[in-house]
């Protein structure tokens, strides 16, 4: 404090020193300033001097600390506040309220719960934050190849501006070029996009479009929900529910209407019109006139049942309410309106004949029958009784109606009055009091207007008849037309439909029949494809005996090939001789040797002498060089031919083969396991066989194996053994995304090796999933990397691609991200 004072004094001195030089005006100002400063300082001092302890007895000798321990009550304060005049009313009121309120403050939630809530909120926040990574992660997962580090500068040639920092247009050619570019508003500095393209980009960014689309989607969804709700509610069958609903609506509507009268009188008028319309409808219909089935039943009950009577009365009341003229407080407007309504002829209230020409009740026109009857042909057939009933009802209705009309006529205000005012109504609520008032006012003028009214009525009735005639004609025509229409195209349609139906049925039947006819062994092609040529060969029908087939197959007629020999220098005779020699040589050559070898092996050295004889002649060691004499060969040949003939006579080869095959087939067939225990459960002993049913019961037959591959090939035996050696190299488990073997097999059907593919394809097929640059530090992805081009603000109008002006800003963000990275790398280094 003391320091402050000193400072102030120093200031004063300094100011006083400079004071003399200034003019008088300045002096005055300065004084003021000084005063202000001094006043500030003095208030402070005063505060310091104030006694702050509140006590009942104030002693000048000591400070009493009597009331210090007690709490101050609100009532204490209030008492003083009431007395003090300076306190504002508002605070007083607040305090009073506070005092009167008995509510206690809610306990703050305990720690666990608050933390839980906080956690929940935090989770949602982070989830939203993290979810923005989802797209990029998915994209990276899908990507065929990833190249790290992610933000590599694109390789390839760069523009001059990018490489050279301070590049300027110098040569005249360059100048010319840039002039041209400039004229045509082509980008010069950063030739990425032309202004037109830029603008088109600016028009709507991707983000914006997405948002818009989402909004639209939401709106559509909401609409559909609403529709669904309405439909559901409509379906509710409870009458009570609907009643409540309706009443609630009514109340709502009334409220709204009240407001509308104040705010939007035109709208209110519209509403009133609607009400009038409903009144008309009510007047037309028999809805609340106790003429229905229910009403009749109630009428019977009404004698005895109070509630039934009440219900009926209610109905009638409702009718009355609805048919009540809407009375408007302001006479002029209302009356003119009423007049307008009254001039409308009766038939306007008639329902459209087209709506339901069948039901006379719905027509609302009860007095005239002729035209209706003419058009309602179907109804003609109704019984007489029904008609009588109807007539009675009609009579009743008419009576009521007349009564009502009389009532109404009383109520109807005069034309002139109505003419006077424009069409403005306000209050639909038909309060009885008001009505009465109106009645009273109207009655005075009633007498005068009677004549006019009658005249008018006559006119109207004339007009009515004319109109009805016209309408009946029309309806006749219309009905005829419609009937014709029904007969001609409609019938055709029906016929068509019928036909269609028949066809369809037939088709389905066909299909079913087809399904039955489908071969029990459908197609089941052998794994090996067959050429068309195969079909040409005579495939024996399967049912035939196999042995015969086989022979047929083997003895299939073969075409003899003539062997033209070379024109050689040798004479004809010589040639002939040679041919014969060749033939002989062949006849005695391999056939026999082979055969003999065969025989020797098969018959286990049956004729060793033969072997001895022939081997030197025909064996491996050059029999060619040593030609045996002709006669000798001939003799041998005859012998051997006979042997061959013998061999082939029995068709050994074929029968052997068939035996082989049948043996294999038999081995492949499953055996029947006999589990019968003789003597088990019945008498046993020598000569007693277990009963037939038992044998049947305990002989277990296993399912037959799938048909052999060579089933239809009589001269082929195909091994049914599974080749297990390949299995170790094969895939035995389906890899993940595939659901069946066909999918997987088709996905690996194309080889990837360079033997079967071109170089580029091999490279493409075998490219690594991840490529990393040697020596480069691979930083984790930063948010800026993938959303740098996006504007995250929902209403953001910025372009998707930043250009020109924004470049700097972008750089800034980059820099920041770099900084970010730098920090991270530092961390890692630590």
């Amino acid at each position, binding site marked *: 404090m003391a320091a402050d004072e000193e400072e102030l004094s120093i200031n004063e001195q300094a100011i006083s020193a400079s004071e003399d030089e200034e003019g008088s005006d300045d002096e005055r100002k300065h004084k003021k300033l000084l005063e202000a400063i001094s006043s500030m300082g003095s208030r402070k001092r005063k505060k310091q001097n104030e006694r702050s302890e509140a006590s009942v007895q104030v002693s000048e000798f000591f400070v009493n600390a009597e009331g210090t321990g007690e709490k101050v009550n609100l009532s204490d304060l209030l008492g003083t506040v009431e007395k003090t005049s300076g306190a504002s009313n508002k605070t007083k009121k607040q305090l009073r309220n506070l005092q009167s309120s008995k509510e206690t403050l809610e306990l703050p939630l305990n720690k666990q719960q608050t933390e839980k809530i906080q956690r929940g909120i935090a989770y949602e926040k982070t989830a939203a934050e993290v979810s923005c990574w989802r797209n990029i992660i998915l994209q990276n997962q899908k990507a065929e190849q990833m190249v790290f580090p992610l933000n590599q500068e694109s390789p390839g*040639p760069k*523009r001059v501006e990018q490489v050279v920092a301070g590049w300027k247009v110098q040569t005249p050619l360059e100048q010319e070029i840039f002039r*041209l*570019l400039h004229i045509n508003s*082509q980008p010069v500095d950063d030739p990425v996009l032309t202004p037109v393209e830029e603008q088109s980009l600016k028009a709507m960014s991707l983000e914006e479009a997405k948002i818009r689309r989402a909004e639209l989607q939401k709106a559509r969804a909401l609409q559909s929900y609403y529709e669904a709700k309405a439909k559901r509610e409509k*379906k509710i069958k409870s009458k009570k529910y609907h009643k409540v609903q309706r009443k609630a609506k009514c109340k709502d509507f009334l409220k709204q209407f009240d407001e509308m009268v104040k705010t939007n009188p035109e709208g209110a008028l519209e509403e009133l019109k609607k009400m009038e319309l409903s009144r008309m409808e009510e007047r037309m219909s028999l809805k609340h006139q106790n003429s229905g089935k229910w009403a009749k039943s109630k009428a019977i009950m009404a004698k005895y049942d109070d509630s039934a009577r009440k219900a009926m009365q209610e109905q009638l009341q409702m009718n009355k309410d609805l048919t009540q003229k809407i009375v408007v407080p302001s006479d002029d407007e209302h009356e003119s309106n009423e007049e307008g309504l009254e001039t409308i002829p009766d038939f306007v209230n008639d329902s459209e004949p087209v709506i339901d020409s069948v039901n006379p009740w719905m027509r609302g026109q009860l007095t005239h029958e002729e035209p209706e009857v003419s058009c309602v042909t179907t109804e003609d057939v109704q019984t007489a009784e029904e008609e009588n009933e109807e007539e009675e009802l009609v009579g009743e209705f008419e009576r009521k109606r007349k009564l009502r009309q009389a009532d109404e006529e009383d109520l109807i205000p005069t034309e002139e009055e109505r003419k006077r005012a424009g069409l403005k109504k306000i209050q639909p609520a038909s309060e009885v009091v008001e009505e009465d008032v109106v009645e009273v006012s109207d009655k005075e003028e009633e007498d005068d207007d009677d004549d006019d009214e009658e005249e008018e009525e006559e006119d109207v009735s004339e007009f009515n008849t004319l109109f009805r005639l016209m309408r009946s004609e029309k309806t006749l025509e219309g009905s005829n037309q419609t009937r014709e229409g029904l007969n001609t195209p409609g019938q055709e349609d029906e016929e068509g439909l019928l036909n269609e139906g028949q066809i369809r049925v037939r088709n389905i039947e066909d*299909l079913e029949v*087809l399904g039955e006819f489908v071969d029990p062994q459908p197609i089941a092609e052998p794994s090996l494809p067959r*050429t*068309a040529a195969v079909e040409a*060969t005579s495939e024996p029908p399967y049912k035939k005996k196999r042995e015969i087939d086989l022979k047929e197959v083997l*003895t*299939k007629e073969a*075409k*003899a*090939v*003539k*062997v*033209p*020999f*070379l024109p050689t220098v040798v004479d004809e005779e010589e040639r002939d001789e040679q041919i014969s020699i*060749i033939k002989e040589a*062949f006849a005695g050559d391999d*056939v026999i040797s*082979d*055969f003999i070898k*065969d025989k020797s092996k*098969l018959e286990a050295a049956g004729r060793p002498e033969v072997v001895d004889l022939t081997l030197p002649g025909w064996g*491996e060691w*050059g029999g*060619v060089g040593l030609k045996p004499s002709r006669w000798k060969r001939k003799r041998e040949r005859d012998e051997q031919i006979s042997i061959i003939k013998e061999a*082939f006579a029995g068709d050994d*080869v*074929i029968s052997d083969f068939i035996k082989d095959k049948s043996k294999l087939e038999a081995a492949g067939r499953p055996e029947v396991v006999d589990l019968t225990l003789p003597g088990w459960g019945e008498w046993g002993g020598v000569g007693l066989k277990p009963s037939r049913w038992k044998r049947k019961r305990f002989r277990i037959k296993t399912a037959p194996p799938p048909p052999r591959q060579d089933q239809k*090939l009589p001269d*082929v035996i195909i*091994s049914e053994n599974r*080749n297990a*050696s*390949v299995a170790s*190299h*094969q*895939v*035995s*488990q*389906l890899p*993940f*995304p*595939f*659901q069946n*073997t066909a999918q997987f*097999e*088709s996905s*690996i*059907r*194309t080889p990837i090796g*360079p033997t079967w*593919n*071109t170089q580029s394809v091999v490279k493409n*097929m075998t490219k690594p999933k991840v490529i990393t640059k040697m020596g480069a530090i691979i930083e984790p992805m930063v948010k800026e990397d993938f959303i740098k081009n996006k504007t995250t603000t929902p209403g953001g109008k910025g372009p998707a691609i930043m250009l020109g002006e924004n470049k700097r800003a972008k750089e800034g963000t980059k820099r920041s991200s770099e900084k970010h990275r730098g920090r991270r790398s530092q961390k890692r280094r630590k």
Partner: protein
Amino acid sequence: FRKMEQEMLKCLFLGFGLQKIRYPCSKKDPFPGEAPIPHKQLQKFQRGEKYKVPAGARRRLKEAIISSEAMSELAQKQAARYDLLLPEDAGFLEGDEDEDTNTISQDDIADAVDITSGSKYFNLHLSQFGPYRLDYGRTGRHLLVGGKKGHVACIDWQSKDLMCEMNVMETVNDVKWLHTEAMFAVAQKRWLYIYDSKGLELHCVKKFNDVLRMQFLPYHFLLATASATGFLQYLDVSVGKEIAAVCTKMGRLDVMSQNPHNAVIHLGHPNGTVSLWSPNQKEPLVKMLCHRGAVRSLTVDKTGTYMVTSGLDRKLKVYDIRAFKPLHSCFLPAGASCLSLSQGGLLSAATGDIVQVYQNVLGSSPVSKPYMAHRLRGQIWGLAYCPFEDVLGIGHGEGFTSMIVPGAGEPNFDALDTNPFRSSKQRQEWEVKALLEKVQPELIGLDPGQLSKVDQASFEQRHKEQVEALGFDPLAKDKFKPKTKKKGRSSAGAIEKRKRKVAHEDQRDEIRQTVQERTERDKEQKEKSNEKKKLGNKSTLDRFRK
């Protein structure tokens, strides 16, 4: 013009930085996009059926299928596009009118063609140690001949450069090149020997005795041998191990061939059957009865579709070995002791001392006359076509003859696989690569694509166990669950209706197909009958009608 100029300048000056470069010339490319690929070519490289994404597939599955399909399509397209690079076409011999091509002698052909080709017709007179077996190396440059009486020689036959020549002083039953021209196997009287190209004996494999015929499976590095004792043995020449020894129980095995498509060995037997073998099975994969007499020779074409056999019943039969059905057979009066199929599909048959070459044997129609014929001296012992050359080598009693057969060889070779012009360095490279890509013998089977299939048996077994453990089938197709719809469309009836719509979908598809087929057939028949009626109703007097 001004705009053009400006654009041009812009392009020139700003170069590649532009996002879209507008070309200065205003002319439109008359053939935009890539050149279309003919459908036929595309079909040539098609591998399997395209797989459509099934309805209701999950996202990952959809992605997997789509990407794999895209890859397949790309591969197919590129392969078809690069098919252009195989420009060579095989030629053939064409006679004058009324001249059978089989009467044209080899001398005439050799005179008519250019010197290089003409030099491919030559005879080696080796009457001393015949008859000869022969084998060409895979590249077609090297020839190996082995005389019955022990003479073995290997020749670079195009340059006529003798690499080595020796007499093994034993009966030689067969000779075969191994994977390169550096090694060959000789089946001698008792054992199997392996020599290098200098004639140095590398191995004497005593496990392989009494070998009569050999086949080398180049991609498996397997030497398959058939012995007189009825054993079929496999020797892995890359590791020198016997892979399998199968006792065929079919007696002496002197007819042997391999199916280059699936590396299955075909053996012909004296009882007229041909059996197919793999090293993995102790019984024949297939046994088919082909002839009523013994089988004398057989050969399989390079696509593995056709097999040609000849037997003692003097018949020549062509089989479709995918379906194991005979296509056609013809009767050769002299029978055929040796058969060989060329890369171009020409069949050569040795009938006595005449070699006949047939064209279009593998079609559906039987042959009537040979395409070429050549008479030799002495018994023919071996026949082999030289790969990538129009040359047929014949080993006979009087030595060896190289015969020109136009249209025999494949005109385009795969330089990475079998390069006839490769240097020794390239050969070494190839050898390393081939060894790395060696196919395991376990993969030999009738279906070479077996590896790309899921092992159904174990898959089913495992699946069964899984179902048992889990209590439900994880791979089961989800039962159709109708969506809950609003606006009263999810009533019980509506749901039932919707369910019925998708019920038995697979069956329905089938039915639909059959119905469609049937209607089409009916339609065709109707049309045909209508046409017939039209024709049938026409009387002779109709011509006078206006």
